[in-house]
């Protein structure tokens, strides 16, 4: 047993630790490159557009369905206790604290993170990044920094929209369809949700997820093998790693924040 596992474990550590180191260097270098003279606000805006605006429709549809399902499931669970008046609170709390940030981040990883990895990977394999360096333009400032900062900026905004649309979806099912009293729905929600404890903490989670997902996506793109297969594999890895990271980090953040 140990003959098999110990060398393997050693190998994994040997491989992973320096990789984590280089990924961290990329993150810090990329975030710090906002101060580089080649950082461009226009590039950042462009990324906010591709990462954020173009993900908006997906988020709204997903949020609407999530909220409606929450409405149904919550209703059937609460009706046994005669506590359907708590349905609004249940929906809002689930969305604001957990489902909003987590689902936004997972969808963002699938929609925007994968595209980021593929884009940067193909820029690397077609020597565009090397060409940039040869033109004395630091790719950290021109390519990495706008994407990292756009990711951090965009995910909380997507999340707050997801939260609101989700609650509206829950309302659509609870009040007109299932016949919960509308006044109770909102009043209960209002008396149990706090701005700081629930809404802002949820958005803080989204901010962390945005950073991690974008970081992983950019890092996978930069370290992809410069071939078509290499970029494809990196794209898959980017989505898988980002999703797992979001779920793991969610556990830690939940334990810390709530």
């Amino acid at each position, binding site marked *: 047993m140990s003959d098999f596992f110990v060398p393997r474990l050693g190998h994994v550590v040997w491989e992973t630790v320096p990789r984590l180191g280089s990924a961290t260097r990329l993150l810090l270098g990329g975030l710090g490159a906002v101060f580089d003279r080649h950082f461009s606000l*226009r590039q950042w*805006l*462009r990324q*906010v*557009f591709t990462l*954020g*605006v173009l993900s*908006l429709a997906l988020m709204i549809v997903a949020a609407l369905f999530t909220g409606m399902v929450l409405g149904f499931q919550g209703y059937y669970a609460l009706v046994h*206790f*005669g*506590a*359907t*008046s*708590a349905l609004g609170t249940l929906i*809002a709390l689930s969305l*604001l604290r957990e489902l909003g940030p987590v689902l936004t981040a997972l969808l963002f990883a699938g929609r925007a993170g994968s595209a980021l990895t593929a884009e940067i990977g193909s820029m690397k394999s077609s020597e565009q990044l090397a060409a940039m360096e040869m033109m004395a333009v630091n790719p950290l400032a021109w390519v990495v920094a706008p994407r990292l900062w756009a990711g951090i900026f965009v995910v*909380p*905004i*997507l999340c*707050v*929209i997801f*939260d*609101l649309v989700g*609650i509206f979806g829950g309302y659509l099912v609870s009040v007109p369809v299932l016949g919960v009293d509308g*006044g*109770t729905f*909102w*009043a*209960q*929600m*209002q*008396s*149990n*949700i*706090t*701005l700081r404890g*629930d*809404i802002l903490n949820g*958005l803080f989670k989204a901010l962390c997820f945005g950073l991690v997902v974008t970081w992983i996506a950019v890092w996978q793109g930069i370290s992809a093998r410069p071939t078509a297969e290499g970029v494809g594999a990196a794209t898959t890895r980017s989505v898988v790693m980002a999703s797992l990271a979001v779920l793991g980090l969610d556990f830690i953040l939940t334990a810390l924040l709530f």
Partner: protein
Amino acid sequence: MSQRAIDWWVGIFVLLGIAALAVLALRVGNLSGFAYGNGYVLHADFNNVGSLKDRSPVKLGGVTIGEVTHIGMNPKNFRAEVTMQIDPRIKLPIDTGASIYTQGLLGEQYVAIQPGGMPQNLQPGGTITLTQGAVNIDQLIGQMVFDKASGTSSSSGTNTH
């Protein structure tokens, strides 16, 4: 996509985010002002408010007519002092009672008003003296078991006055 179009879209996107946050904060969270801000104030002392909190509804016959704006402790008699704001159209007689009830088994608590029959009305800033505090379910169950064991059946509750 021209730079100008991108600027527009990003602007709309950011505004949407801010608007969504504002709606969440005001409509869902509890940042908005009290809904009965123009109502008149009544006080009531309870021996136990249970899990009543700010913004809990005040109901009469199941209809919300006001809300709790403050819960404090009266240092003179060690009773919880609840401040409410009531819809100004609803005038309550001075022998009105107030109880703290729970919606359903696990629902939230609210103040239920039982109007009295006296001709004079409570003035703004007045105090409801006939109060019944929140029922403690543990006590209730304990008492029921005790009653069963002793073969009697008496109603429970913690009436004051």
